[in-house]
């Protein structure tokens, strides 16, 4: 009989035990798979979001997050200076603030002002979008889907906004016209967002004449790339801080997202140990119960290598079947856990904690294979060192 068939028969001879072993590995494997998805999920998802926005470099006056320190001064001239660099294709000053709606029961609206409506960090879904130089001087806004739904807004609707961008400023109410509904990449699930041109933003916030920006979004020259753009900006304006998307991701990976990476590393280690323990116990008990049978097979001529192979293959069957079952289980579990974590306030609706990557699949298979091998070591040693005649004698006596 071939080793594979022999190992399979050895395994299914105790169907309840085999089924429980496979189920145990499946549960452990599902958790391991999820921890692998979690370990890089935020980073991958954050990178995808940054790429979707369409700008390669972010420039601000502070090294930390925008709005945590001073703003970029002389924003118009600064953006023009950056655009003049050969490594830069476009530079768009952006300001971020907040506004109140007429209805005090409604939550605060996040306000975004962008100098260039044609290259902006949003995607227009409905309506014509922001138009430059309206003859009637009316302020136009783009609203996100949440705001459109909650206020029943469509392109052409009018609403009142009162800017609350500065603590020491109380600007008058401004009536604005909805120019479209847009998708803002970093909005959280319940956020209300409105975007307008920079001059309209300043008017709404009561900071007309304040030529500052929270950040300048830069599109690098496609031939030279974002790294060259960052270097050129740092040379031209050493007082500013420029970060490419890759640098931002690396930074967030080191600091902001490291908690989930470390939690996933701890849990992955525990689940692997748990799986190792489960398989070792199952195989050891199985081998101990079959010592007489194994000794008889050895006496009939089966080599030591052959019986060791049987144990290793049995372990491989347990882990292989359990691991395969773990994948759909793990994906379902990841969806559930992702839904739980995405309820966290301030998390962009498009950001995911658990993201599938082919490398996670390869790593999952590799780790389980290593666990299967390690778990088979002790029972394999038992059968390899089995004294044939003494075992047969003992078994015969009992």
């Amino acid at each position, binding site marked *: 009989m071939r080793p594979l068939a022999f190992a399979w028969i050895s395994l299914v001879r*105790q169907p309840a*035990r085999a089924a*429980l*072993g496979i189920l145990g590995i499946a549960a452990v494997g599902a958790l391991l798979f999820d921890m692998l998805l979690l370990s890089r999920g935020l980073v991958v998802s954050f990178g995808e979001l940054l790429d979707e926005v369409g700008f390669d470099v972010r420039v601000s006056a502070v090294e930390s997050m925008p709005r945590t*320190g001073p703003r970029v001064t002389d924003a118009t001239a600064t953006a023009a200076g950056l655009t003049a660099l050969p490594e830069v294709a476009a530079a768009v000053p952006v300001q971020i603030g907040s506004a109140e709606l007429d209805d005090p029961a409604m939550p605060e609206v996040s306000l975004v002002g962008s100098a260039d409506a044609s290259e902006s960090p949003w995607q227009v879904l409905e309506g014509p979008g922001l138009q430059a130089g309206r003859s009637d001087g009316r302020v136009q806004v783009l609203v996100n889907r949440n705001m459109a739904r909650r206020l029943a807004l469509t392109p052409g609707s009018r609403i009142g906004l009162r800017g609350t961008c500065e*603590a*020491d400023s109380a600007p008058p109410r401004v009536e604005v016209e909805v120019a479209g509904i847009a998708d803002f990449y970093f909005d959280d699930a319940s956020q209300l967002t409105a975007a307008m041109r920079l001059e309209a933003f300043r008017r709404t916030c009561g900071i007309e004449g304040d030529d500052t920006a929270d950040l300048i979004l830069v599109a690098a020259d496609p031939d030279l790339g974002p790294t060259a753009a960052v270097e050129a900006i740092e040379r031209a304006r050493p007082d500013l801080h420029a970060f490419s998307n890759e640098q931002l991701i690396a930074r967030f990976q080191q600091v902001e997202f*490291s908690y989930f990476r470390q939690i996933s590393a701890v849990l992955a280690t525990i689940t692997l140990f748990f799986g190792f323990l489960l398989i070792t116990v199952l195989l050891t008990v199985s081998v101990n*119960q079959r010592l007489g049978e194994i000794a008889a097979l050895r006496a009939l001529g089966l080599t030591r290598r052959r019986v060791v192979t049987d144990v290793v293959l049995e372990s491989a069957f347990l882990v292989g079947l359990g691991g395969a079952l773990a994948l759909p289980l793990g994906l379902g579990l990841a969806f559930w856990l992702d839904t739980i974590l995405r309820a966290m*306030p301030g998390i962009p609706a498009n950001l995911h904690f658990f993201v599938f990557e082919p490398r996670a699949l390869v790593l999952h298979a590799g780790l389980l294979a290593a666990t299967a091998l390690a778990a088979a070591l002790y029972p394999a040693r038992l059968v390899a060192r089995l004294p044939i005649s003494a075992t047969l004698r003992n078994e015969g006596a009992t």
Partner: protein
Amino acid sequence: MAASIGLATALASLDGPLVRAQIPDTSLPALLVSRQLAEAESLAVGDTVRISANPDGSEPRTFRVAGVYEPVADPMRFTAQRHEARLHLPDLLELTADPEDPLSRESVTSINVALADPADAERVSRELSAKVPGLIVRPAVRSGDAANVFVVIERFHQAIALVTVIASAVFLLALMVMLADERRGVVGTLRLIGLTRNRVILQVFTEGLLIAVAGAGFGVLFATATEGAFNRFFQWRYDTALVFVRITPRVALQALAIAVPLGLLASVAASWTLLRREVLTLVRR
């Protein structure tokens, strides 16, 4: 402006350019620096530092380091570098006030209020919000809020715990099935010498109880023993005094309440198939 005020006392915190000076002077205004900032800038009590609210470091003022403090552990900011300094409020206003705006010397970002009865926080917040339009009043502690980040994290950990319990239950059942199978002959013999099925079940139940209590107790002890190591690792990693793991009596009881019945159930379920069989089939070889 890089300053923020956030304390109930007449102290304020400031994040901004900080330059170490060489000549200590006790007549200078005092400030406190966070332990992290003191370590990063090699500051000690008695040093003098110059602080500016401007990003280019212009118009600095000189202060004397009067002490080093451990920032209050803030779970919302545990990944942030706590490079902070605390100034007396008049010193901060002097440093950050806009000369063209007389009101800026009378303005603060927030006022922390200690209530006689903390349970009134929600009611007082609602009343103040209604009485002073434009003022944002929030309770400092919001419990049970579904959108609270810690409620979400707790739910996530509970979900992970549930999966772990399921995996453990399967593992336990597999172990108990093997154990029961090993003892098939012993159970058969006990039945043959006259022990009733109920008597054997009682024995299995007692054994299961002992194993479950011992296992669960060991688990709680192991978690308590490793709690310190876990906390020390994350406190070192994030340079914070925050406590990440705390095994409270409630947590220990919760673990026992889940693990012991689960262990009992597994041992009884595994033995049940054995006890249902005829005695002779149990002892037959």
